[in-house]
Structure formats: structure tokens, C-alpha cells
């Protein structure tokens, strides 16, 4: 080829022919810093509004009274959300863990494994309101009325894929020689799993479970048709169930000013619950060096 033309073309694909490229570079870097600042500003603004408005209207009655009592409160809703999430965990945690154990320890490279992984990913991506519709059809229609169980089922559907993926990843992190050593001692696969792998991964799995709990504690859409909400201190899962998120939604739609104030306090309680949980998890399992 032409020896004289190539050196400038080949040697420098970046420099030359682009006047001002250093200024472009600085400009883009500045834009990246600005977008980061914007994202953090949004977080700050949202959290401070929730904090300020929530604290403004907070009263002791909020934690001790029921929605229809004279200084109104949300005691039953807070307790209801906690119990609802516990019921959902009872249904969702074992199932999610079993899926994760299968995918990490038993799955080969077969078509079935790919299908299972895809299904779990798709379940994780399903709009949560649809899981509410499913739980409505499966539980509310046969029972003829809304109930805590149907809400718990909808939340469990959300938990399963999160916990499955977390468990799978955590089991994968257990160093392979652990399994080899256990097999070398003559342990069976089930013994290895229960006595070596799961104990080693338990902190990580617990993290995944707690993140799933934090996630479903803030869910509203799947509970609209299932738990329905309840103004009484009724904690029987066969009855319509009180829930903090549902109460916030209901109050935010009303024109009554004191109810809107209650909604802000409710959101403060909810966000505190979720964020403290999430941050605690994050700091409890930081990568120690």
C-alpha cells in the first residue's frame, strides 16, 4: 500500500482533526458531575420533604390510636404492614431459597436451567400490580372477600425471585474447595449443603431476605385488590387487612386536610422503616478486608 499516507492515519485515531477536543472532554466531564449532583439533589429534596412534612404533623397518637379514633392514628396499619410482611416471608422465603439452592448447587447447563433462570428473571420483572390481580383471582374470588392471606400471597410472589437470585449468588460465592473438602470427607451432597455451604453463606442469604422484606414493605399496588385495608385493629389474616401503604394511598386521595397530614406522617414512618432496614443491612455486610 501507499507507505506515505498510512502513518498519520494509523498512529493517531484520537488526536488531530478534532479541534477543541480537550474542551469537549472537559465539558462532558462537567456534565457528568452535574448529573450526579442533580441525582443527589433529587434524593435530598425528596427525603427532606418527607422528613419535614412528616415530622411537622407527627403526634404520639399516630402510634397509639386507630384511624377512626378522635386524635387519629395509624397503629393498626403499622402493625398490619409488619405482620403482612411476616406472613409473606413465611410463604416466600423457603420457596425463594429452594430455587436459589437448585440453581446454584444442582443445575447443570441444560435447557431446563436456562428456562428456570429466565422464569425467575421474568417473575422479578412482572409489574407488581399484576401479582395483585393474580392473588385476587386465586384467593379473593374463592373466599368471596379480601383478606390478609391474599395480600401476603401477592407480596410473596414479589419476594420469591429476589430471594432466589440472592441465594444463588451467595451460594456461588462459597469457595469451591469447601465442597471438595466436604466430599473428600465422605459427606453426601445434601450434608455438604446443609452443614458446609449454607452455614458459610448464611449472612449473605440473610441480606438478600432482608432486602426483599424492605422491598415488599413499601409495596402498595399488589395490596389494592387483596389486603384492601382495615380501619379496625383486626389482625386475622382471613379478614381485610390494615396496611400502612394502603392507608397512605387512601388518605392522599382525600380532600380532608388532617388526613393528608396523616399521609405525610405515614410516609415518614414507612420510609424510615424501609431505609433503616436497608442501610442496616448494607452496613452489616460490608466487604471487610
Amino acid at each position, binding site marked *: 500500500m501507499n507507505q506515505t499516507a498510512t502513518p498519520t492515519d494509523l498512529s493517531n485515531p484520537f488526536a488531530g482533526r478534532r479541534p477543541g477536543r480537550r474542551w469537549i472532554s472537559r465539558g462532558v466531564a462537567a456534565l457528568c458531575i452535574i448529573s450526579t449532583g442533580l441525582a443527589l439533589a433529587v434524593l435530598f429534596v425528596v427525603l427532606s420533604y418527607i422528613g419535614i412534612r412528616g415530622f411537622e404533623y407527627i403526634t404520639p397518637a399516630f402510634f397509639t390510636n386507630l384511624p377512626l379514633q378522635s386524635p387519629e392514628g395509624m397503629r393498626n396499619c403499622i402493625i398490619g404492614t409488619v405482620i403482612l410482611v411476616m406472613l409473606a416471608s413465611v410463604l416466600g422465603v423457603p420457596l425463594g431459597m429452594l430455587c436459589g439452592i437448585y440453581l446454584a448447587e444442582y443445575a447443570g447447563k441444560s435447557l431446563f436451567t436456562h428456562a428456570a433462570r429466565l422464569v425467575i428473571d421474568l417473575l422479578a420483572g412482572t409489574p407488581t400490580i399484576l401479582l395483585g390481580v393474580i392473588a385476587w383471582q386465586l384467593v379473593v374470588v374463592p373466599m368471596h372477600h379480601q383478606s390478609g392471606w391474599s395480600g401476603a400471597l401477592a407480596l410473596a410472589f414479589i419476594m*420469591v425471585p429476589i430471594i432466589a437470585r440472592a441465594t444463588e449468588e451467595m451460594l456461588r460465592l462459597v469457595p469451591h474447595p469447601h465442597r471438595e*473438602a466436604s466430599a473428600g470427607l465422605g459427606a453426601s*451432597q445434601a450434608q455438604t449443603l446443609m452443614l458446609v455451604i449454607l452455614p458459610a453463606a448464611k449472612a449473605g442469604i440473610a441480606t438478600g431476605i432482608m432486602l426483599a422484606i424492605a422491598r415488599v414493605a413499601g409495596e402498595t*399496588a399488589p395490596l389494592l385488590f387483596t389486603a384492601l385495608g382495615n380501619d379496625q385493629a383486626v389482625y386475622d389474616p382471613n379478614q381485610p387487612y390494615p396496611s400502612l401503604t394502603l392507608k397512605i394511598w387512601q388518605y392522599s386521595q382525600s380532600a380532608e386536610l388532617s388526613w393528608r397530614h396523616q399521609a405525610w406522617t405515614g410516609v415518614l414512618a414507612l420510609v424510615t422503616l424501609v431505609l433503616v432496614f436497608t442501610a442496616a443491612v448494607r452496613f452489616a455486610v460490608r466487604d471487610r478486608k
Partner: protein
Amino acid sequence: MGVPGTRIRPGTPFVYFTAGASLAVRFRKGIRVARIDMTGMTGSEPVEQTFAYAPQNGWRKWLDRAVYGLALGGVLLTMAILLTIFVVLIHGSWLALGRIGWHFFTTQAWNPVPGRDQYGVLAFMYGTGITTLLALVFGVPLSLGVAIFITRLSPRWLAGPVSFLVELLAAIPSIAYGLWGCFVMSPWLQNYLEPAIYAVLRHIKLFPVGKYPSGRIEFFPANLVRGGPSGSDFLAGGLILTIMVLPIITAITRDVLRQFPAELEQGAYGLGATWWQTTRLALGYCRAGIFGAVMLGMARAIGETMAVIMVIGNTDSISASLFAGGQSMSGVLANEFMEADHPIYLSAMFYVALVLMVSSLLTNVSARLLLSRISGGKGTH
């Protein structure tokens, strides 16, 4: 440590010793923790099976089988859940599928009064589509900016806290965003941002007025801001979704950008590339993963319910105006599912749910396909 392909015979002392030592050392270090963050994303490499467990007898054989059966049963049950979703949605919408059929996608009107019974998903699909589009238009550049800042710009001590704070955006429940959007963002939009946009954009005539059949369908407004500032409109829906897709797209893009090989970066700098030229190289190298991240953000936006219905205005209009109110598919489900008191109405609600499920499924599948290409560890030029 296992040589790949060797079978370990039970009770071999040498293997016991070496592997046992390794066991102790690893235990002392504690387990490493992979990333599971608030966006629900995880990632690690698959484990190679290098040995086989010894054949077992008696109760241990049965224990093995029982545990395997339980795990397999769990997976099958989970697969059954997804199947159940489809069965329930198709079963529920069967009546509407037969009576309305394809007209569902060509009708804008939504009139559930018994006797009238007009059902069309078009307005709701448009509402979901336009808010999702707006969220991506605002959210993708913003998320890429944050991800580039974290991976390629920020000092090391700052990267972790910024990552954590941006991920925190994903931990805030959607009802909290909804309440904030409804009582803080919407009034602010109505009083400050939208009048400013209106002052500029109302002079730009987009479509010739009066040439299109008027009536309930007003898809072609005179300009992009027809109707004037209201605060509860497509723009508000798009903005609140922007906040919600930001942490997802940022987290995945950040992880993908970290896979950009150091040799390429050093090579580019060595050739005299500027920081931005090198970053563009990284963005191009990781583009499949970034598209996957965008698709996952899009799936989140399509499925989001509470935050959107609180700011979108809740009307069934279709308008290219940013300031027009609308409704999303998930929003109409949340608002009207419980009010569906006659069979065809309820069936139409299930039909909306089915359309929502299929759109979210398609988005998710394409996202996973794009992301699985990079998690295979191959470059993506």
C-alpha cells in the same frame, strides 16, 4: 484444591488435608459478599463442577434425594407461578378477547357503563408509552452521566458513597414518590417549570390546526404545550418515572463500565486520547450492556403504578401535548379493577392486565438477552 476433572475418592487423607487447610483459611477470611443491591440486581461467575460426590447408601441417599426433590420442587413451583399468571390473565380476559378482540387496540373510548360498554386500551397504552419514553429521554443521559462519574471520574473515596446514595433512590417506596409528586412536584411544575416551558413552546406551531377530525381524539395539538400548565400531566408522569428508573440504569451501567479492560483504556490514553474519547470507547465497548440496562429501566417504568397515577391526571385522553392529562395501563387497573361490576367490564380489565404483562415481558426478555451477552464474559464489539 481440585484439579479440574479429577474425582475425589472419599476419605483420601491428602485431599482432606489440603482442602481442609484451604477451608480453614477461607473461613478465617470470612465470605466475600457479592453485589445484591436495592435495585435487585446481582452478578457473579458460574461455578465449575470439578468433582463428584461419592455414592451414598441408606439414610444419606434418601436425604440426598429429599433435598434434591425439594429444591427441584421449588423451581417447578416458581415456574408454575409464571404459568399461572398467564393462565389467570387469559382465562379472565377470555370474554373480552372474544367480544372485543383486536378492536381493543384501535379504540380510544373507555366507557364501562352497562349497555354502552366501549373498551379500548389505546389511551392507556399511549399513557404508559409516552411516560416511559419521557422517563428514558430524561433518565438515560442522566444515568449515564452518574455511572460515568462513579466509574471514571470520581475519586475512589467518593465513588462508594455516591453509588450508595443513588441506589437509595431505588429503596424509597413508590407511594412515597407518589405523595411527593402529588403534593410537591405537581404544584411546583404548575407554578414554575411549566409556565416557563409554555412561554417558549406555545409559539412553535407543530401541526396545522383544524385539518384533523376533532372530537375526543386530539392527538395532534396545535403545539406541544396545548392546554397550558396543569401540573398533573404526561410531563409529570415522565419526571417521576425518571427518578425511579435512574438508580436501575445507573447501577447496571456502572457495573458494565467496570468491565472495560484496562489495556484498552491505557492504550487509548497512550495514543493521546482525551478523557472523553476514552470514555466514548468504553461506552461503545459496553453498549450491549448499556442497552440492557436501559431496557430494564424501561420495564420498571412500564410496570410502575402508584407514583404515576398520583401525578398523571387520570383521564383517558391521547394527546401529543406534554401538558395533557392521561392514564397508564397499570393506573387504570389500580383505579377501576375493584369497580368492575359486570362481566365484560371485569374481562376488559383482565385484557388490560394481559396487554401490560405482554409488554413488560417483551421488554424484560430483550433486556435479559442483551445482558446475558455480556455476562458471558465476552467483549461486545
